[in-house]
């Protein structure tokens, strides 16, 4: 497989192109043409599809897109291309299992199959809106204390020592180090010092990543996210992050979040774009696992019907044709403290687990408010484990998810955003307040009865 040196070279020597031409004449055109050629169709009544031939067509179309488009480097305006042999090598060398974390807290993260009955790995944390410094530690602790949570992906800080964190400033270093210190402290206090962290969310630029490559902050058993920019793009900041972590020895993870309604087109084009992004992300960044986060052009949540269809078909397409380790985001429009959030979590989680990804959540309120806590992540974990252990099939899962989505989809634009963490948890003991716990128990009962899952 290509080394990072070759990626750096290609970013300097690849074909020159204006970005607008890449967006319109390459990505948009290819996505549109490939969707048509391969007959890919989004059906809102089949959020989880059982049509294996369409699943495989999505993969083939995505492979073609990866080969024909490549990746556009924004800084150099050059296209980084890989041939089919490179992409195949990337796939054949991709780990299908990985030890994450340390000691008794380590876990084996693995590539899930379709309708896989093994327990999924549960990733807890609120990775959406920035979190106030004064809640950061107790909120992180609320996730760490959940025994069903296997690894953590918590969000960034908005303010550090009274100063607002700004991109490309020294405060990114301060904030990322503070974030990691608090995550480590939370892990220690929860008695899980070796838990795997997917972290460094406080830094958008490479500054924070450079500043935490040390055992004191982020260990080589931890991971960071490197985004593929929308759509099929990268830049020197992203490549710098990869260079740093590759040499440091921690895990690179590709974050792919194409926009439904954007350059790739509708849900079908976005699915094709996802596959291309994963294949290219693997050879560009040497990523060992990958995050699926479809973005609806109106919402940041992944629980929108079009987004869940993407999680479903992309998860299945990768699982059947290029078994990468995939984490499927669980981002809701509603927030913790609401009833609505449980419908969204259930639908999104069932979709992920049945179709080849591990659940990663819960981030709330379309990414606008950090209204999240460990309790609804416990619910996500319970749904995920029961979905897998019960051997849920795609047809039955689809019926459940369509029904659940009908209970919230018309409210996603104006969701119940719930309450901030300090109103939901006893901040001293870091346990849910009785009212929030009662809502959890009520909704768990209701959804168990509705779906037949033994929650």
């Amino acid at each position, binding site marked *: 497989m290509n080394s990072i040196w070759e990626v750096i070279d290609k970013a300097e020597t690849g074909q020159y192109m204006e970005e607008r031409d890449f*967006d*319109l004449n390459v990505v*948009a055109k290819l996505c*549109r043409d490939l969707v048509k050629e391969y007959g890919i169709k989004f059906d809102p009544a089949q959020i989880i599809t059982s049509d294996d031939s369409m699943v495989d067509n999505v993969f083939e179309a995505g492979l073609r897109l990866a080969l024909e488009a490549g990746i556009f480097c*924004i800084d150099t305006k050059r296209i980084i291309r890989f041939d089919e042999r490179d992409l195949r090598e990337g796939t054949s060398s991709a780990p299908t299992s990985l030890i994450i974390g340390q000691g008794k807290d380590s876990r084996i993260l693995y590539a899930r199959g379709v309708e896989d009955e093994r327990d999924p790995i549960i990733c807890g944390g609120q990775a*959406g*809106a*920035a979190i106030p410094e004064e809640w950061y530690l107790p909120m992180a602790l609320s996730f760490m204390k959940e025994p069903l949570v296997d690894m953590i992906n918590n969000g*960034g800080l*908005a303010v550090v020592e009274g100063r*607002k*964190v*700004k*991109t*490309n400033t020294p405060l*990114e270093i301060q*904030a990322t180090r503070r974030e990691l210190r608090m995550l480590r402290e939370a892990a220690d206090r929860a008695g899980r010092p070796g838990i795997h962290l997917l972290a460094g969310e*406080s*830094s*958008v*630029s490479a500054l924070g990543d450079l500043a935490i490559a040390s055992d004191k902050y982020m260990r080589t058993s931890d991971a960071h996210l490197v985004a593929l*920019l*929308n759509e099929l793009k990268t*830049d020197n900041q992203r490549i710098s992050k990869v260079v740093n972590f590759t040499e440091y020895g921690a895990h690179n993870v590709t974050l792919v979040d194409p*926009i*439904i*309604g*954007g*350059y*790739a*087109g*509708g849900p079908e*084009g976005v699915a094709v774009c996802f596959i291309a992004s994963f294949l290219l992300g693997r050879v560009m960044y040497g990523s060992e696992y990958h995050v699926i986060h479809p973005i609806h*052009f*109106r919402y*940041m949540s992944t629980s929108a019907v*079009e987004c869940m269809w993407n999680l479903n078909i992309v998860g299945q397409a990768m699982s059947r044709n290029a078994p990468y380790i995939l984490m499927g985001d669980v981002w809701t429009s509603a927030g913790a403290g609401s009833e609505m959030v449980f419908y969204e979590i259930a639908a999104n989680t069932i979709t992920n687990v049945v179709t080849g990804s591990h659940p990663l959540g819960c981030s709330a309120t*379309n*990414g*606008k*408010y950090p209204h999240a806590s460990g309790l609804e992540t416990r619910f996500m974990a319970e749904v995920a484990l029961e979905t897998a252990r019960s051997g849920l099939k795609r047809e039955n899962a689809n019926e459940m998810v369509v029904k659940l989505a009908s209970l919230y989809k018309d409210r996603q*634009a104006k969701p119940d955003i719930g309450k901030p963490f300090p109103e939901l948890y006893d901040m001293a003991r870091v346990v849910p307040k009785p009212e929030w716990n009662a809502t959890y128990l009520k909704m768990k009962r209701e959804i168990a009865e509705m779906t037949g899952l033994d929650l």
Partner: protein
Amino acid sequence: MLDDLANSVISGDANRAAEAAKNALTGGVDPLNAITNGLNRGMKQVGEDFSKLKVYLPEVMMAAEAMKAALAILEPAALKKDSTSIKKSKVVIATIAGDIHDIGKNIVSLLMRANGFEIYDLGRDVPIDAMISKAMDVNAEIIAASTLLSTSMPYMEDMIALLKERGLRGKFIIMVGGGPVTKEWATSIGADGYGDDGDEAVKVAYELLQRVKPN
């Protein structure tokens, strides 16, 4: 002929739009009428279709290109006839410093253009002084800033502070938006308006132009 103009925009065909514009003029259609009831009608339809996900961003961009091609022919004719006939509100828009995510901003920019605003799109990762300078240069009514990153939101606050420091705050309507930006936060930093999405941004811009008169 007005339908031809509208349909050429809807189909995103710049050559056809330019041809339809020439035909309209030679056919004696009032150029202002051609713009308002032909091109603008077509662009409005594209905006509505995008909101319902019937078309996607590339189609909206192609429609904007078609409209631009036709306007290049119709606007000079309209101005020749009546120099006050076309008065568009000017908007300087950008993804603010530190952020390179521009698809959301592009959507807002195109929808505002579709709704008759004159748009100066400065791109992404734009320093706040560059946004202010451009707004001064073109005598804009609105400065619109977008970001997907919570770590670029403080630059919006800095921009308003800089405008105040330079005695320019009253000259411009300030609108903000983007993934993590909320209405409450927009109010807290002293912005005039906030849009949850492209449609709301257009609506709020219209309302603000009626309510807040830049001086």
